[in-house]
């Protein structure tokens, strides 16, 4: 079983994230970045699957600028076997639609047409759209088996538990399939020292749009089907009133709520 895990390099949520004034795209250069935390669960799940099977390889794929190599590195350190980095200046400013196109073509090229299994995180931690996995399923013609909080492989099948707003569902599909996983599914491992050293020798392919046969006019800022017209930093909240509980904290809280017409 050969698994492709799609990962994203994102600005660190603990740092100040912002947009570039020049073109209103997310500033990916001026901030610290890292492998999106939600993608760690995807890498971990892929590793668990091949370890349980005793065979198979995990290839980690990302589309991103030079610094995105760090996301691949982290996944290789966790135990992924090989990496693919699609890096092309023309991709800058792509929307989710174009990103999914590039990812889909890269998955096809990396697997000679059909993967056994493609795994992603449930969403990125910067865009937080949660749409690329469904778009990948659409483009690759694979069953969409997404938001998995529990996963079991059967004989040529994959079964997951998907927890929604109103119900918990069991979803089943035949392989090959596109799976996305939530942060409930496992506990991602920390890279061991051995893993960190071994990662240095693992192969990472570097591809541009030409390698994928993707027309540059289909991607990038100008090709995007949506546009950011304006962005503004939210003004900081006015400092609130903080009181110490001296036997009357609850009463004071109720008074505040009454003053704001909540009771």
């Amino acid at each position: 079983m050969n698994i492709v895990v799609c990962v994203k390099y994102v600005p660190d949520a603990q740092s100040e994230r912002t947009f570039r004034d020049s073109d209103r795209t997310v500033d990916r250069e001026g901030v610290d970045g890292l492998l999106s935390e939600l993608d760690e669960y995807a890498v971990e799940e892929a590793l668990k699957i091949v370890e349980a099977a005793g065979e198979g390889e995990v290839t980690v794929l990302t589309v991103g600028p030079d610094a995105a190599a760090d996301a691949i590195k982290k996944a290789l350190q966790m135990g992924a076997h090989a990496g693919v980095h699609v890096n092309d200046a023309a991709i800058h400013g792509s929307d989710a639609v174009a990103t999914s196109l590039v990812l889909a073509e890269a998955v096809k090229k990396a697997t000679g047409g059909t993967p056994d299994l493609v795994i992603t995180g449930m969403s990125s931690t910067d865009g937080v759209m949660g749409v690329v996995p469904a778009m990948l399923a659409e483009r690759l013609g694979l069953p969409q088996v997404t938001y998995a909080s529990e996963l079991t492989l059967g004989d040529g099948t994959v079964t997951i538990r998907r927890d929604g707003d109103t119900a918990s569902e069991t979803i089943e599909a035949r392989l090959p399939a596109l799976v996305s996983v939530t942060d409930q599914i496992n506990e991602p491992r920390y890279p061991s020292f051995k893993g960190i050293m071994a990662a240095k020798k693992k192969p990472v392919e570097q591809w541009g749009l030409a390698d994928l046969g993707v027309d540059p006019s289909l991607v990038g800022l100008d090709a995007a089907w949506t546009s950011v017209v304006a962005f503004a930093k939210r003004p900081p909240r006015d400092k609130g009133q903080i009181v110490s509980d001296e036997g009357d904290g609850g009463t004071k809280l109720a008074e505040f709520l009454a003053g704001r017409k909540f009771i």
Partner: protein
Amino acid sequence: MAEVLVLVDHTDGRLRKATAELLTIARRLGEPSAVHIGVGAEKAQVTLAKYGAHKVYVVDDADAATYLVAPQAEILAALVAKVSPAAVLISSNATGKEVAARLAIKTGSGLITDAVDVRAGDNGIETTQSVFAGSYTVTATVTTGTSIIAVKPNSVPLEASPEAGVVEAFEVTLSDTARAARITDSQPKKATGRPELTEAAIVVSGGRGTGGDFSPVEEFADSLGAAVGASRAAVDAGWYPHSNQVGQTGKQVSPQLYVAAGISGAIQHRAGMQTSKTIVAVNKDQEAPIFELVDFGVVGDLFSVLPQATAEVKKRKG
């Protein structure tokens, strides 16, 4: 006037509040047509008409309920091809966004998710989004195809505006690819009698500080008619279900009032509630980052503060 399709968010014909919000917004953009996929249309039709649906397309397809997401996208794509709407509005929850995503690719249209406002601007439909854990506000538009917009619940007040809601049956032959991910079982969430987290006007959440005992949180929530939320720490500890988790990897909520009890306020949690209109916190630690966000805070033990507050609320409510 241009038609605006609204995907009805329902369980067997019981509408979720978000549907009425979508119809309210749709009226700003054109003539709303509700799209009801699945059973229960007769039950839903009255409310759909009340909130402005001129038409209700009914797609009574059993496969749409049996297979995940793909059938709904295929049905909507067929309807988009038939009626060329100005926009398609969908609830911005996990399933809604995935339907919207596949619809965008099928119809060659731009997609905007988690919109908190949608309006007819000078240059077409404009949306507002709250991004980067609520630290930035973005105005965006769709520049290609039909505007496909997933809208967050609790974004607009409901406005009834009765229309005819004429039912029109619509049939689609689903492809094999649409019938690939089968829903073999569905366990409905246990009813608590409390409002649903993303729809509630008031949310009271508990965190590590509860030590696993959510009773003061629940009683305070009940005194206010609120939904109950939980921090990631509380969910990871097994104290409360993941479906109640508020945060980056749980639900993002924006209620009128958010009360955080025993929650430190790490960025993971803030990403889920930072845009709430009024924020209150109770925490023993006066250095807790949550206090930077609050309109009102009590430094104290939630096991003393919340019960006292609950009693006071009940007294005032009579």
